[in-house]
């Protein structure tokens, strides 16, 4: 799963959001590191929809425009949980290795 897809799924984890709502939520989740352009966002949404990880929730009129909301499917929720677990496990390994390598690396450098 790409980083963008991971953030988009995470943005939908606590409820349906429309396109620009996802952009804002992803920016907030990533502390401003990931700022999705609309073209990039809909490339990700298209793939996630094809994989049945998200689905349309509803449409709402807003200032004369229709906003379409998306939500996670059960498969999407499961995929996100698995990805989060994988990333957490990877982070644990990285932290452990950095912890082990730290003193040795410092010794070598010194």
């Amino acid at each position, binding site marked *: 799963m790409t980083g963008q897809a991971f953030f988009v799924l995470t943005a939908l984890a606590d409820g349906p959001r429309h396109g620009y709502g996802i952009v804002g939520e992803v920016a907030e989740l990533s502390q401003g590191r990931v700022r999705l*352009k*609309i073209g990039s966002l*809909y*490339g990700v949404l298209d793939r996630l929809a094809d994989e049945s990880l998200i*689905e349309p929730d509803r*449409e*709402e009129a807003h200032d004369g425009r229709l906003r*379409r909301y998306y939500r996670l499917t059960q498969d999407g929720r499961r995929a996100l949980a698995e990805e989060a677990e994988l990333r957490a496990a990877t982070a644990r390994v990285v932290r452990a290795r950095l912890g082990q390598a730290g003193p040795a690396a410092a010794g070598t450098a010194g």
Partner: protein
Amino acid sequence: MSSNLERRYRRVLRLLPGWYRERWEDDMAAAFLDSWLTGDPAADEYISKVAGPSSAEVASVAGLAVRLHLSGPATPRRYAWGQAIRRAVLALLLVHAVLGLDLLVLVTWSRRLLGLPAPPPMLATATPGGAWDVVYYVVSFAWLVIFVTLILGRYRMARILAALAIVPGLVALLQAEFTRIMPVPFGSWAWWILFNLVLVLAMTAFHPGAPPVARWPWLLALPAGYLLVIVPLLTLRETGDSAWVPDLAGQCCLLVALACLAHAPRAWSRRAAGSGVWSLALILLAAIAGAYRMVTLTNYLYDPHLINVGLAELLIVLAAVALVAPDAARAQATPTLPRPRATAA
């Protein structure tokens, strides 16, 4: 109301393929306008007049357009075929895996490896007598590994193992052809081509962008296939009532026909989303089983009765395919993303 800002953005969106715009353009335009407009009429009027998509925004749409034009991952037709091929591949691998499981059970039973009593004489398997026997056993068991490997998402590993697994069969056929010990029946070549070579080539449909395989249903299909197909066949063989059982090609035709019949209610129900992909997959499997049946009819040229039986099997599979064909045709035209329900706000 279409503002200048919206028109400018929609002009950029024309870079995208038509099928994609039909699906996403309104959504993208709405999201883009959301990113600009403030809700203050005066400010929004000014923004709409002077603003336009940034170069980064244009670049993101252009990048998406290039990707879609080059790889075209998701036209409804293309997606449906991709999914159908992947399911047909899994079904063919399931056939190999069930046959491998059959051999594994018989070997385990014959060797009394798990403290089992001796099997009936009809079911006992001989100890491998030579190199080819050993290779046959190894390849048969390898299909079990390949099936599970693919389901677990290790596509590349599964493809490599499958490509290796079909080599001994080809070598054996070529050896028999060239040494002329005995003429190789067309059916043996047909089996290798349809159930080995075509299968390995079709496994390329499992690329990193493909949707993940539904693991549990396919894993459970292995013991289910063994219990529902192999156990009755072994029972018939043991009781000596197996003379009327069709040959392997006939069994393939009848299994596909039964699967079509089981799927037909879903295929005919307008509410069953995604049924068309299964209908397409069943048509692919029927084509393979039918081709195998036709080629193996040449084994029975000496017996008109068996030819008639084979033709009847072909007719059965054709009739069964007719049941799901309309649904398969719909699957190629229907977008996979359902329309949302509209609500007033």
